[in-house]
């Protein structure tokens, strides 16, 4: 089975080489694709020097567009499973296999690496962020009747069906929680896997400060709307 790790990277020059080295050492059997989202700090060159395949976007698309480019590539190249793993070192490569396991076993379509499940003894984000994550988790539970402890996690595995569907259409803004909603609304199986994440080591989060409240509102609306949509087969 062909497996791909998609590493979206925007201005991750400080961390990208280490992330790639770690992937090579701790996720053998996985091809790696860096999606450089028009970084201005030479991330693409560093990724190539590190020997990675690099999809070099000519314009900045944001996390949704970058990850979708990775999905498109995965579909075009015939990959059957893909894991999204951030380029900033938050997602330890040794969990790639664990996150993908339920998808590889055919037990689910979307697997999410969760910081909050029992057994995940890593960085657990800030208290304020956890409030937001819990609120969105509650909304998912109300809307879809399933418990998702870490819907904002960007460490996740997708099966072929989802890859094909997301290659066609993927949310461009704050995609993570909405993707949970879309998958559940389409009757697909979503599972969580405990992972120990690291605190952010380089770069900056795309969401910070007061934007957090706005994020919860926007994503909340997106979740409610996702209840009314189904993914293309």
């Amino acid at each position, binding site marked *: 089975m062909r497996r791909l790790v998609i590493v979206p990277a925007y201005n991750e020059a400080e961390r990208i080489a280490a992330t790639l080295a770690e992937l090579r050492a701790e996720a053998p059997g996985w091809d790696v694709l860096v999606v450089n989202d028009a970084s201005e700090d030479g991330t693409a060159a560093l990724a190539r020097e590190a020997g990675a395949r690099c999809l070099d*976007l000519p314009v900045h698309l944001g996390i949704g567009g970058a990850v979708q*480019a990775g999905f498109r590539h995965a579909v075009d190249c015939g990959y059957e499973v893909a894991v999204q793993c951030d380029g900033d070192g938050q997602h330890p490569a040794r969990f790639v296999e664990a996150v993908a396991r339920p998808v590889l076993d055919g037990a689910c379509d979307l697997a999410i690496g969760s910081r909050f499940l029992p057994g995940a003894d890593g960085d657990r984000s800030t208290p304020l962020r956890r409030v937001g994550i819990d609120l969105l988790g509650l909304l998912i539970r109300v809307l879809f009747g399933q418990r998702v402890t870490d819907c904002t996690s960007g460490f996740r595995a997708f099966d072929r069906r989802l890859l094909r569907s997301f290659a066609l259409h993927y949310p461009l803004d704050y995609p993570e929680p909405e993707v949970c909603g879309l998958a559940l609304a389409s009757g697909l199986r979503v599972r969580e896997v405990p992972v120990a994440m690291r605190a952010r080591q380089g770069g900056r989060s795309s969401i910070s400060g007061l934007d957090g409240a706005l994020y919860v509102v926007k994503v909340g609306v997106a979740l409610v709307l996702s209840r009314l949509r189904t993914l293309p087969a």
Partner: protein
Amino acid sequence: MNSDAAGPILVLPVAQALLVAGCLLALATVVVLVRRNRLELRYSLLWLLAVVAGLVVALWPELARTVSGLVGIRYTFNTVFLAVMGFQLAVTFMLTLAASRSRRDRARLAYELARLRLELEQRGIRLDSSPAPPPDERRD
């Protein structure tokens, strides 16, 4: 509401003349921009419609009063404001539709370009392009 309650509107010849002049200026602007290929025809139709509506109201203010009476709005200028606001909302909506579509197209094109670059690279051809310009809006 009876139509007698509709107040006077645009009875001043000066106001009428100004409105007509404004409409004609807008018309000329739209025509010039279309001729220079700076405004797409599909969007120009919208503005031509607005100009025609403005001219009608300017030349036959009675019409606006009659419409007010029909829909039961007491003051005629409220009818005009309502129509203008409705028009603006419709335009904004159309623009957000167009923006959504072009964002999707842009993501698709960016991917296709990146993929071509990667394919060439794998065949030993390296396209060195100019560095990405700093975008003016990051959270897009």
